[in-house]
């Protein structure tokens, strides 16, 4: 065996270590699966073995779960009957093996340090005793739903049987990992031990000659908290209601998890495991699973690991970095830098303003310490790394400067000049801007090759994405350095080229723009926002305008009109935001008056005056109309992303998808705009867009390059594969 080692001591305790060769982290690879059967049979059949301690041979944790790369290959396709039976048999193998392990007649204890996620935790749940390290690195969870899958190694069956439906459902549906204490309190683990002492604790349990039976195999076992038709009814009903309310039918994984739990706990566990395997397969075969595994896991990982980093430049380390401007963005950037161990100088026009910016970090640290997520010492050390000041000379020695002042060309040019006078050679000059073209901003610099755009998202400490913008003169070396910096602060980069609005800001606006087109057409505002949320977007298009601020949209449109001159294309939203701002003083949520009214202490309600701006013509939607609104809202964004691809603003479909999902909350179930187009089928997408263009105008006209891909029956991701292959 390559992945498992087994050593049996004189006391009859076999210590089994999982250590997958060639991997930094244990995952359930095909090799692990192949070895698991013989391992279980050996445990069951070897008379010298009286009990088993299962643990990891790696320091970072027990096991991070299924090999998602492998799952991805099989995702998104359904099959004929014979193939389906075969696939089911394969999907059921882990369940069969783990069931054999827990009924083999020998006590098995698992010692958990670091991660046990997904299939890793499911293996642990099939053990008779679980002891976890009392360590901040410990994480136990079943995150499958987040990539459109469900726990297929018995998780949907053993977890509710262990802790009851009510406690199990949130863990299964939301996939949030638990820390040691929480896991112990919920009953996921039997005991906690100090880090490094879990194996000893497991041995101590085995020394008590425990009965090798799971609770659900004991006589008189009853489901904790009751079954669906007993006291557990409200929990399952609330589970369905929560999933329906939040997921709008877009996430089959969550729905199938509910089905597994409901159907599975009413029958013996063997039948429950079979039910789970069927739903696992059914879920993996949805287009959502394919798209979500790719975007949420594979693409994010690839981008974080430097998939877009130019080769040939040594790894570059940011030891010291300065942030110019201590507003909301600057303060957030300073925090993530300091949290990553970077010596940070936070500068603003006055010491007072800079100190206010640092106060943000103090607040975040305070919260983390209060919640036990950070020690006081670590918090103090983090804060000590931030120097808040008005003194630009502190920039000296910095490896990188991020300018995060207001979106104003003159101001940005001024601080750029001031900063680069003090910068050492080879240092990177970065501008955090969401709209201003980088090439233009770089003109203020004497070394535009070292100038790069790093578009952070707000709130910086919670938003994982950084949109990296290469100006015309940005050198590959600067890009490599910028990506190394992003890696250091543990964010996910996408790389785009310079253009008005770059990629994310440009596409983001189309969603609410289309919503306002609908409003102008006379579709009732409630329909627009409700259907907007039903597409899987986090907010409706109109309420989003309120949140962004109507007067901001008004100003941006005005600026665009001035900038573009004859090339400017008028849109329905222009007249709407103009009337809202000029005639009614409705600026959005910030002044409590937008598309909605925001009564104090009460929920927001649609402003009754909206019908004066656009009389309602469609008050009751047909199912067909709802479908069309859905399509318009999603396709409009996807089309803009496709145009960005055609124009070379962004070429990598992974950046397209990850940028959309992490940047502006594009419907996660689709995997992102590129995945959505592939999911629909490029030819079908083009045909539907042509039909929409006929009805609603040129904004739905598909770009020529999509037609080309459609003509040769290709897809966006496949086109990418070809390009990469050619380049190689």
């Amino acid at each position, binding site marked *: 065996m390559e992945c498992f080692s087994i050593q049996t001591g004189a006391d009859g305790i076999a210590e089994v270590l999982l250590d997958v060769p060639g991997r930094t982290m244990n995952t359930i690879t095909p090799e692990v699966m192949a070895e698991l059967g013989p391992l279980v049979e050996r445990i069951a059949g070897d008379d010298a073995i009286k009990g088993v301690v299962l643990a990891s041979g790696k320091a970072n944790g027990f096991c991070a779960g299924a090999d998602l790369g492998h799952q991805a290959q099989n995702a998104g396709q359904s099959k004929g009957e014979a193939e389906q039976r075969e696939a089911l048999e394969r999907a059921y193998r882990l369940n069969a093996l783990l069931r054999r392990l827990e009924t083999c007649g020998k006590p098995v204890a698992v010692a958990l340090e670091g991660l046990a996620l997904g299939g890793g935790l499911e293996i642990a749940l099939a053990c008779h005793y679980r002891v976890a390290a009392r360590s901040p690195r410990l994480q136990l969870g079943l995150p499958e739903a987040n990539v459109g899958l469900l726990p297929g190694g018995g998780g949907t069956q053993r977890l509710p049987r262990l802790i009851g439906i009510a406690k199990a459902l949130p863990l299964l549906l939301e996939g949030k990992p638990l820390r040691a204490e929480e896991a112990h309190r919920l009953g996921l683990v039997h005991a906690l031990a100090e880090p490094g002492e879990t194996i000893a604790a497991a041995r101590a349990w085995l020394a008590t000659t425990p009965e090798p039976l799971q609770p659900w195999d004991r006589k008189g076992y009853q489901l904790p908290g009751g079954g669906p038709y007993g006291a557990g009814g409200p929990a399952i009903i609330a*589970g369905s209601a929560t999933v*329906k309310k939040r997921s709008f039918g877009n996430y089959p994984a969550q729905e199938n998890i509910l089905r597994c739990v409901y159907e599975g706990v009413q029958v013996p566990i063997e039948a429950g495991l079979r039910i789970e395997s069927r739903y696992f397969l059914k879920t993996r075969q949805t287009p959502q699973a394919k798209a979500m595994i790719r975007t949420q896991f594979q693409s994010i990982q690839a981008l974080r690991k430097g998939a877009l980093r130019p080769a040939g430049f040594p790894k570059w380390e940011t030891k010291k970095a300065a942030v110019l401007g201590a507003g909301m963005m600057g303060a957030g950037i300073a925090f993530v830098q300091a949290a990553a161990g970077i010596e940070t100088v936070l500068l603003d026009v006055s010491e007072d303003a800079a100190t206010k910016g640092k106060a943000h970090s103090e607040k975040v640290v305070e919260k983390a310490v209060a919640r036990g997520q950070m020690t006081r010492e670590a918090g103090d050390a983090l804060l000590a790394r931030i120097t808040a000041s008005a003194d630009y000379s502190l920039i000296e020695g910095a490896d990188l400067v991020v300018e995060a002042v207001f979106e104003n060309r003159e101001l940005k040019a001024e601080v750029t000049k001031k900063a680069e006078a003090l910068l050492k050679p080879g240092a990177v000059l970065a501008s955090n801007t969401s709209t201003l073209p980088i090439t233009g901003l770089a003109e203020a610099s004497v070394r535009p090759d070292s100038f790069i755009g790093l578009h952070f998202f707000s709130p910086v400490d919670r938003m994982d994405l950084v949109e990296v913008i290469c100006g015309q003169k940005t050198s590959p070396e600067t890009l490599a350095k910028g990506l190394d910096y992003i890696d250091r602060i543990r964010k996910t980069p996408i790389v785009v080229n310079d253009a008005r609005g770059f990629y994310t800001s440009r596409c983001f606006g189309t969603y609410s723009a289309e919503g306002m087109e609908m409003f102008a057409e006379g579709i009732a505002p409630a329909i627009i926002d409700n259907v907007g949320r039903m597409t899987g977007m986090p907010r409706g298009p109109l309420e989003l305008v309120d949140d962004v601020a109507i007067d901001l949209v008004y100003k941006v449109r005005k600026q665009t009109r001035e900038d573009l001159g004859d090339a400017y294309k008028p849109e329905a939203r222009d007249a709407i935001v103009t009337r809202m701002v000029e005639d009614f003083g409705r600026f959005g949520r910030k002044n409590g008056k937008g598309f909605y009214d925001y009564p104090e202490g009460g929920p927001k309600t649609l402003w009754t005056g909206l019908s004066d701006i656009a009389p309602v013509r469609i008050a009751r939607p047909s199912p067909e109309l709802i479908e069309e609104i859905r399509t318009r809202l999603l396709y409009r964004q996807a089309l803009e992303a496709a145009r960005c691809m055609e124009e070379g603003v962004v070429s990598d479909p992974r950046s397209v998808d990850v940028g959309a999902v992490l940047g502006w909350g594009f419907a996660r179930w689709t995997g992102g705009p590129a995945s959505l187009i592939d999911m629909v089928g490029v030819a079908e997408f083009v045909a539907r867009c042509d039909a929409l263009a006929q009805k609603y105008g040129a904004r739905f006209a598909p770009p020529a390059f999509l037609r080309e891909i459609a003509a040769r029956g290709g897809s966006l991701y496949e086109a990418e594969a070809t390009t990469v292959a050619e380049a190689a």
Partner: protein
Amino acid sequence: MTDAYIYDAVRTPRGRGKKDGALHEITSVSLATQVLQALRDRNGIDTANVEDVVLGCVTPSGEQGSDIARTAVMMAGYAETTGGIQVHRFCASGLDACNIAASKIISGEAEMTVGGGVEAMSRIPMGTDRGAWPTDPSVALDTCFVPQGIGADIIATLEGFSREDVDAYAMESQIRAARAWSEGRFARSVVPVKDQLGLTILDHDEHMRPGTTMQSLASLKPAFQEQGDTFYDGIAVQRYPQIDRISHVHHAGNSSGIVDGAAGVLFGSKEAGDRLGLKPRARVKAMAAIGSEPTIMLTGPTYVTRKALGKVGMTPEDIDLYELNEAFASVVLKMMKELAIPHDKMNVNGGAIAMGHPLGATGAMILGTAVDELERSDKETALITLCVGAGMGVATIIERV
């Protein structure tokens, strides 16, 4: 086909459906048994002539389980040859039981039957038998399940019925029920419930609140606000995206009351009645059942009414009296609005908001109320209908003979 005639209709008074309700200490079987005995004794019939007893019951669990109809038939001392079947179509069960009992006459399957229903809600609480509809995620998710109170609030929101509108309707129900009782309009149908010693334990509807005022109604808290906020409003708008916010206007005072009770209606052919010397009181003219959108759930009455009327070439104006179960005020307001039914034709003696809604029995009770009222007010035709869980409607049209 044979005509089905109604020969008699009886009901128990409705006891408050709580532990302190007068009927809480009387079993469901006893309630149903007393109704069957009253039908037999009042009409002096040899029960060997009654071929089948169909009883509605919405929570056939515990003592209401295992075919309570046959159980009651046996306990009532009916002939051994009399069958018994329990039926369930949520709130319309009692009317469906009557429609099935009538259908047996019409089809020639039987010459004399009883339709009716029983529900001791204080003893077997609503929902005791659960069911897959809300509980099985496959069903709940696919059907966009929301509790029916939310459906009633959706109706109010879509139709623009304000809290004042629904409260005013509830107020009128109380006034009409009180008047009907004081004028003895229910005297013919109501048979007092006897205790274990044979002493009367309840002889009037216990749920009524004669002191109700608009102010007292206004002080009641919306019953479905919290459920709506937590889960179900967010689900309802997925079916009705034209709704910005659902206005939760229903509460304990403008929704049907939870009560205990039973009812029975004696059906037969003309020939069977003649043979037994019974005088028919009404004829079943038409019956219908439909399914409707399940999330809003309670819009069935309008559709089923149109369907039943259509079967006999009638229009809404042709009906002299309507009995529409007052499940929630908005249900009645919607039907009156859509079919242009004047309020003085609708639920003229009050309804379930004032007197309560013993789920499985109500349909049979309001059918009996309609028969009595046709006679009292010298009218010709009545239409009886109820909204139904999971989006259905049932209706019966009768005419006086």
